[in-house]
């Protein structure tokens, strides 16, 4: 996936000479995969310190954690590639999971998930319309709707926890396929679909175009406004999907089940290598980023570090990742925004 993506962007000005091919294609490829190396080293180190880490129960735990963040991060990657942002992740997850928990006693598992995705799409549409047509900066519009959605979720439940008793639903969302947890399999599928959407469709091209230069994109006649709204809708659906699996894992849904989740999601995307200035996005990086944070959180748990350190660590890693990205970006500024 990644190799093609590099070729894609570099392909236009690749020189057949061997040395320059090495410089243009192979080096960037290696330098962009350093994250996988970090992930492997980290896993081995944690495993050496605490052999429990490699137990099958613990690994599946890590994969579950990674897939909740990762599913939401797929939508966020597309948003950030378009130069947008959504802080209302926690609100969308809460409302859609509560919808699942409320609907399950009356309908099939499929219809409950369908309802959750529909609600995610509607909430994403609200965000998209506010950003595109009321022209409120994305981070502040979605900060407002975060509280709006959380308010809705609390009003819906009356502040209580809604239990989720359907055995079928729990079996579906917490089961495994060939030993891999179902949510992780779904994450891989969604990541591949998002990759195709971003790099292989007109829609994705429009998103990348207005992500790197909105004015140029609209002057070129691209349907910027429509694509902007749609990318918010897509992100809303991906958040709702994460929420549906979270509700299954927790066997319940409530208003503050995903408080502060937006931080984890944005951190996974940014650490994965998608630059905040927009124009490009890497889905492989996002999945690896989500895994990295899941391993990190798991390691802190196993090592008995107070869970509060996770807040500090996530924030610090996010700042470090962006600061490094900003240094790199200024070095490559001449080449344009991809």
């Amino acid at each position, binding site marked *: 996936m990644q190799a093609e993506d590099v070729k894609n962007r570099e392909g236009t000005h690749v020189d057949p000479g061997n040395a320059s091919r090495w410089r243009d294609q192979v080096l960037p490829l290696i330098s962009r995969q350093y994250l996988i190396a970090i992930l492997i080293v980290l896993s081995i180190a944690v495993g050496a310190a605490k052999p429990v880490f490699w137990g099958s129960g613990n690994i599946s735990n890590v994969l579950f954690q990674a897939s909740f963040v990762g599913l939401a991060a797929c939508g966020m990657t597309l948003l950030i590639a378009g130069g947008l942002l959504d802080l209302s992740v926690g609100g969308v997850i809460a409302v859609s999971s509560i919808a699942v928990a409320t609907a399950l006693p009356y309908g099939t598992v499929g219809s409950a998930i369908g309802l959750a995705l529909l609600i995610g799409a509607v909430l994403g549409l609200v965000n998209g319309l506010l950003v595109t047509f009321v022209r409120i900066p994305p981070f502040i519009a979605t900060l407002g709707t975060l*509280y709006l959605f959380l308010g809705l979720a609390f009003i819906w439940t009356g502040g209580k926890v809604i239990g989720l008793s359907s055995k079928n639903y729990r079996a579906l969302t917490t089961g495994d396929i060939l030993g891999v947890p179902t949510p992780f399999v779904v994450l891989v599928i969604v990541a591949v679909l998002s990759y195709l959407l971003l790099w292989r469709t007109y829609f994705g091209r429009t998103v990348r175009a207005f992500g790197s230069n909105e004015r140029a994109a609209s002057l070129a006649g691209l349907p910027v406004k429509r694509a902007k709204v749609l990318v918010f809708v897509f992100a809303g659906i991906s958040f709702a999907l994460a929420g549906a699996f979270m509700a299954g894992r927790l066997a319940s849904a409530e208003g503050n089940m995903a408080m*502060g989740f937006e*931080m984890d999601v944005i951190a996974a995307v940014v650490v994965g290598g998608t630059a905040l200035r927009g124009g490009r996005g890497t889905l492989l990086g996002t999945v690896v980023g989500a895994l990295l944070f899941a391993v990190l959180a798991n390691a802190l748990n196993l090592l008995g570090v107070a869970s509060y350190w*996770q807040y500090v660590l*996530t924030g*610090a890693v*996010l700042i470090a990742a962006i600061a490094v990205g*900003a240094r790199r970006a*200024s070095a490559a500024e001449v080449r344009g925004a991809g």
Partner: protein
Amino acid sequence: MNESIVAPQGVEDLVADERQRSAERAQRADNRRRILQNAGIGIPFLLVLVAGFVAVPNFASSSNVANMLVNAAILAIVGYGMTLVIAVRGIDLSVGSAQALAACIAAATVNAWGPLAGVVAGIGVGALLGLFNGLVVTQLRVPGFIATLATMSVFRGAVLLFTGGAPIMIASTAFKSAATAKFLAIPVPFWIAAVIGAAAVFALSSMRFGKHVVAVGGSPESAVDSGIKVKRIELLAYLIAGAAAGTAGVLLASQLGVVNGSISAGLELQAIAIVVLGGTSMAGGQPRIAGTFVAALLLSMINSGLNLLNVPSFYQYVALGVLLIFALSVDGAQRAAVSRMMKGSK
């Protein structure tokens, strides 16, 4: 080309004429902006005030009024700092966590070394956290909203680690009575907020720092070209925002008497809402301290009214979200109107 051939007298007239017309346009645009800003805050303020007196029992009782004034004062002080940051085109999402950390450290210091040390510690901690935000934004070149989103998480983790999740009781009665004490029948925190507000207005309108803030917010590029140290102004804005959050945190600790690691969650949204509602444009360059002050009163009245009517607190989230989106829409409409005026069409 042609201008140099035509009689210079005519050209000068034309230029002077055009200059005067554009000055008039700017004047009219400014007037319209002011009307929209004042209407955006004034009309909701009056509506809520009247609705409160008419529909809410005990709204005008002296204890409730005092309560509203204290809450408004604490919010307004945070809002001043946010006004400054937004005026230089930044944003500070970490004010809630910074306030919590400042309040908890102030409380612990009061218990250990007395009230005065607590006040100094609270404000100092706030200023340090603000300095940290400013350094991340200006030196590491991380965009403000994402830098402060990250530090929001870092500071929250720090305050939870500091308190270990347990509440801190403040023993000193002198410290606790400060927030409820009255001077000329008005709570002391309100006086403090008014004095800080007046100082901020003076600093922004009459001091070099204020002129630089407006210049940086209006057009950072031109500010750089005219020799203003843009990074230093931005750094100072974040530092002052942190100090303001710390000051408000000290007052909050005094008001509550018991603080814990999870207070002030969601404060950033309230602060941004009052700043934008008060007429400070998200586009930067137009700080309106007085507007922030009035909007803080408005938000405090809304919260108090909803409480007195026994509305579940969840609806306050919704009210706040709607209020913010309303304020941002007014801001957008005002900017659109002004840019139309400047271009000369109706």
